[in-house]
């Protein structure tokens, strides 16, 4: 007998294929990645493949907006949607624990996210490898692996955050609204707030402490991961500050893992207390 967790995950993945989530995320990511790789230097008045570092850094700064949005949209109704349609009550009468259901759903949608990220962004790596004269396959491997790995992690983190929302509310529309606010806070408000803090104190914040505040936001960690590789870039904004404090790549990936485990555990905790 297959573990119920895997049965649920398999069904979620199939659902994702059926309602075209997988294909649309793949296309979005690959258009974004290939477009940036090829037209990335258009502002400088030329087309064609630009340097790998430019490609990855601009890709990362776009992905940081779009990945959390897609993950939240994919998962915000994971539990509350089943509750509204009545299947949650039904599933709870099956030989299946709440943990198995929740983790199964996260696993299934996490697989959708991982698969689409790999295919979508991976396709641009293949394009560059095939058609770019200046970049060899060997040059591509590590930066793209780091980029795709961190992108998958970022997606998973926001799936877990979406589930925290989904298990906490009783209406789908409410979950959608909260998901949008959460997205807005993480990708925009947080950074603006930090910049504002910096400006208003005229840079008088403890410079040792400040970079660590970036660890409070998974999207900033994701950006740090990807610029760690390309320190030769002229960075602006918050990332320039963090550049002085060199976080190790593994440390940053570990921070992303913490950001994955925390909301997932919180979702589990709230779900176990949810009434039927």
């Amino acid at each position, binding site marked *: 007998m297959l573990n119920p967790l895997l049965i649920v995950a398999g*069904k979620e993945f199939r*659902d994702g294929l*059926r309602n075209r989530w997988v294909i649309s995320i793949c296309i979005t990511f690959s258009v974004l990645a290939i477009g940036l790789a090829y037209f990335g230097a258009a502002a400088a008045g030329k087309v064609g493949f630009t340097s790998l570092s430019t490609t990855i850094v601009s890709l990362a700064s776009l992905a940081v907006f779009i990945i959390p949005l897609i993950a939240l949209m994919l998962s915000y109704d994971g539990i509350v949607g089943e509750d509204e349609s009545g*299947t949650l*009550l039904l599933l*709870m*009468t*099956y*030989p*299946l624990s709440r943990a198995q259901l929740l983790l199964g759903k996260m696993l299934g949608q996490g697989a959708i996210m991982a698969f689409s990220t790999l295919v979508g962004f991976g396709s641009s790596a293949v394009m560059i490898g095939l058609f770019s004269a200046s970049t060899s396959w060997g040059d591509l491997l590590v930066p793209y692996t780091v980029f795709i790995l961190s992108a998958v992690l970022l997606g998973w983190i926001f799936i877990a955050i979406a589930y925290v929302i989904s298990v906490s509310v009783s209406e789908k529309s409410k979950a959608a609204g909260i998901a949008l606010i959460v997205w807005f806070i993480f990708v925009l408000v947080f950074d603006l707030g930090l910049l504002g803090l910096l400006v208003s104190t005229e840079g008088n914040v403890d410079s040792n402490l400040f970079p660590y505040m970036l660890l409070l936001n998974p999207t900033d960690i994701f950006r740090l991961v990807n610029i760690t590789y390309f320190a030769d870039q002229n960075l602006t904004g918050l990332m320039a500050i963090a550049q002085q404090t060199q976080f190790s790549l593994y440390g940053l990936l570990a921070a992303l893992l913490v950001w994955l485990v925390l909301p997932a555990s919180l979702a589990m905790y709230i779900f176990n207390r949810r009434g039927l």
Partner: protein
Amino acid sequence: MMSHTGNIVELQQVEKKYQGVKALQSLDLNLHKGEVFGLFGHNGAGKTTIIKLILGLIEATSGQVSVFGKDPAQAGTRELRAKLGFLQENVSFYDQLTGMEVLEYFARLKGTSCKRSRKECFGLLEQVGLKDVCGRRVKTYSKGMRQRLGLAQALLGNPRLLLLDEPTVGLDPIATQDFYHTIDHLKHQGCTVVLCSHVLPGVEKYIDRALILGRGAVLASGSIEQLRAQANLPSVFQLKGRPGLSKELPKELCPLDPNNNASMRIAVPMEERMQTLRTLAGIVSIDNIDIHLPSLEDLYTHFIQGHYDQESALC
């Protein structure tokens, strides 16, 4: 371990409160093997609360709940659920999947192996009349088709205890008949069935015992005969004959609709039925007599109304 009484479900002095509001009070209920049990009551009477208690979805505020001899709300009894079938009101399945895929998903969650589940699902879809549409997505299904899919789901894995909340809502008369035949069949295989409903006509033939609930309290319980005896409602005789029939009737038989028509109804107390029948049989101008025993609906109305009269008298 089965409890010594052999009851599938035992509820003893069960009470349930939601945020201090009583949803169910001092309920005793025993369900035997191979019994079809009807649970009736208005909206919010506590039917669904009882079902949820039996399913272990909620815990009783006080009292004992035992299903197959175990407390269903305990985490360790999850395996018992493979022997349960359940269908609630208003369930809508995964729109993007086909009927077959939905059913297979639930079959595998119930622990059926991949190979066997396909065969089982085909059989069940055929049984509920969805065989021809099993490859279509659920979003194209009508309400009745969804309900039938839900029934197939409840019948997965040969349940020993079946709990059905409003199972015939949205079913056409023929599908309803088919459904009751299925229930009869399961009953003979030793399955215990709880039917929960406020749609009553036609159901009494198929249930062994009934419980009528009102505002969380038991108003009446027992077999239909016991309920009839308890309610002591009169039978209604429908007479057809020549015009002016009412003049020929004995004086103690008073028509319910006193006009001089050729057709009329008279109410006859239970114990006088045979005697009245003999008297009427002697009247030559009567062509036909139809006897209506109080139906479950009449009994239901009687008990519910009696309850409210009592309540308003107290106020």
